[in-house]
């Protein structure tokens, strides 16, 4: 009957744009997620790392990138979905004719843009202050690794956000985020961790993303890249499915 041509493209674009703006304008989200990786890199990779002939500045360039990716993905999905659920935004959006999937795609785009910015910040610090020199191809690979690395942590964050309430969400997400970062060798090389903890590192998805990033700068453990990619893909599918089920059941 009423067949007015309607293209949802503009809705997808605006949804993503405003999701990005909304989080950029929340200092409690944007300041730590954008600045902490760069600040840590400045401290440990540039100031303290200059003594060991650039080893640390290469290693930490890769791992703080992963640290940043985890931050935007876990907080951008976990905390914001929990809050949107609690405050009724998700309910309201579901009642509106928002195009299918726009809500999640917007968050995904937001997390990828934040990751890209973190990646560029780290790269500019590495080039200008730490004297890191990589080929154009390596820079591009590192950047792509960080942008696509959003996927598994977005899925994990989404699942957390579908489980927990808005008030407790930052605490829960931090409890997942920080220990996992440490245990995957993002702050210190695994060789400096106690043996059992270092051996257990492959159970954390962040270890696998870190290994891919470290491969780009030639500092990985030497496992097959395909294995890391497969683990991350599996993590993405499992948590996305769990989250989807929980979110769908509510309606």
């Amino acid at each position, binding site marked *: *009957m*009423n067949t*007015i*041509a*309607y293209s949802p493209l*503009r*809705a997808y674009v*605006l*949804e993503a744009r*405003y999701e990005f*703006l*909304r989080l950029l*304008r*929340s200092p409690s989200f944007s300041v730590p997620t954008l600045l902490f990786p760069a600040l840590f890199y400045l401290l440990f990779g540039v100031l303290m790392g200059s003594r060991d002939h650039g080893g640390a500045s290469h290693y930490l360039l890769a791992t703080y990138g992963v640290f940043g990716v985890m931050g935007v993905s876990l907080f951008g999905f976990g905390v914001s979905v929990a*809050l*949107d659920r*609690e*405050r*009724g*935004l*998700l*309910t*309201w959006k*579901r*009642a*509106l*004719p*928002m*195009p*299918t999937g726009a809500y999640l795609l917007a968050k995904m785009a937001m997390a990828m843009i934040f990751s890209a910015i973190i990646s560029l910040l780290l790269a500019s610090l590495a080039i200008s202050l730490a004297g890191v020199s990589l080929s154009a191809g390596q820079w591009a690979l590192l950047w792509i690794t960080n942008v696509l690395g959003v996927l598994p942590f977005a899925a994990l964050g989404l699942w957390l956000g579908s489980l927990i309430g808005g008030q407790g969400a930052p605490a829960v997400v931090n409890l997942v985020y920080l220990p996992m970062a440490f245990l995957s060798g993002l702050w210190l090389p695994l060789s400096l961790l106690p043996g059992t903890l270092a051996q257990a590192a492959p159970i954390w998805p962040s270890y696998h993303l870190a290994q891919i990033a470290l491969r780009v700068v030639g500092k990985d453990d030497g496992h097959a890249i395909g294995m890391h990619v497969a683990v991350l893909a599996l993590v993405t599918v499992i948590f996305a499915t769990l989250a989807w089920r929980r979110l769908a059941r509510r*309606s």
Partner: protein
Amino acid sequence: MEASMATLARLQGVRKRYGAVQALDGLDLTLVPGQLLALLGPNGAGKTTAIQLLLGLQTPDQGQVALFGRSPRELAARRGLGVMLQSAGIADNLRVDELLALTRSYYPQPRSVADCVAMAGLNGLLDRRYGRLSGGQQRRVQFALAICGRPRVLVLDEPTTGLDIEARQILWATLRELVAEGCAVLLTTHYLEEAEALADRVSVILGGRCIAEGSVAQIRAHVAQRRVRCVSVLPVDEITQWPQVRQVRRDGDRLEIVVDEAEDVVRRLLADDPSLSELEVSRAGLADAFLALTQDADNPARTLPEAA
């Protein structure tokens, strides 16, 4: 077929249970173009559940829900729908114009921003962040977002809660305009005067069921009672004994008497108390009718609606 073409949205015999609570117990609602249906009922009567079913946020255990003849879970059906919920959790740090642009983008033929501003009273608010607006201003924005898509069905869950008088006037005027243009509106409200002022039809809900439906006048006619007020020295217990008298209350030197028929009672009041003054007889309003209906249908101990 004629009738079903005119129906824009319908709940038919819907039942919905949450655990031990039967939220809806065979409810029917019909929305037709150019009509405002007010849903009245105390808290917990099932109003919000009815709205959630109509919006596709919940599915009924039994019965049918149709929006433009389709399931409200279909995107195409919801493109003709405007919604204002009690709490929308709208992003605090987006500006009003950004919120409007985003919500307008969901609809095929949205209203112009200028129209939305005029219809919801948003003058001077477009460049303000939503979180920095007063509660009443936020409600206006929510109303603007509900009408920005040029909806043919508009669902408003207690829209004037928290609105100042001026904003309420704007909202009422806009609703009348929309209804005149052929929009179907479903409105829940605690303010009976709102239903009285706006509604073409009223549906009184209690315990998940519709206990009365009709025009404001028809609902009111369920209660034939009159209310007599005066300043008098006559004792309450004496008047209570008179025929036709239902209830007598004294407030200082004022009497308020609820009666079935006013004429005989007034005659007797005037005869028995020559000093009687400030006599006033009124017809029961929607509020009285509503209270009488919900009390008759349920045990009298039930809590009454807040704003009645």
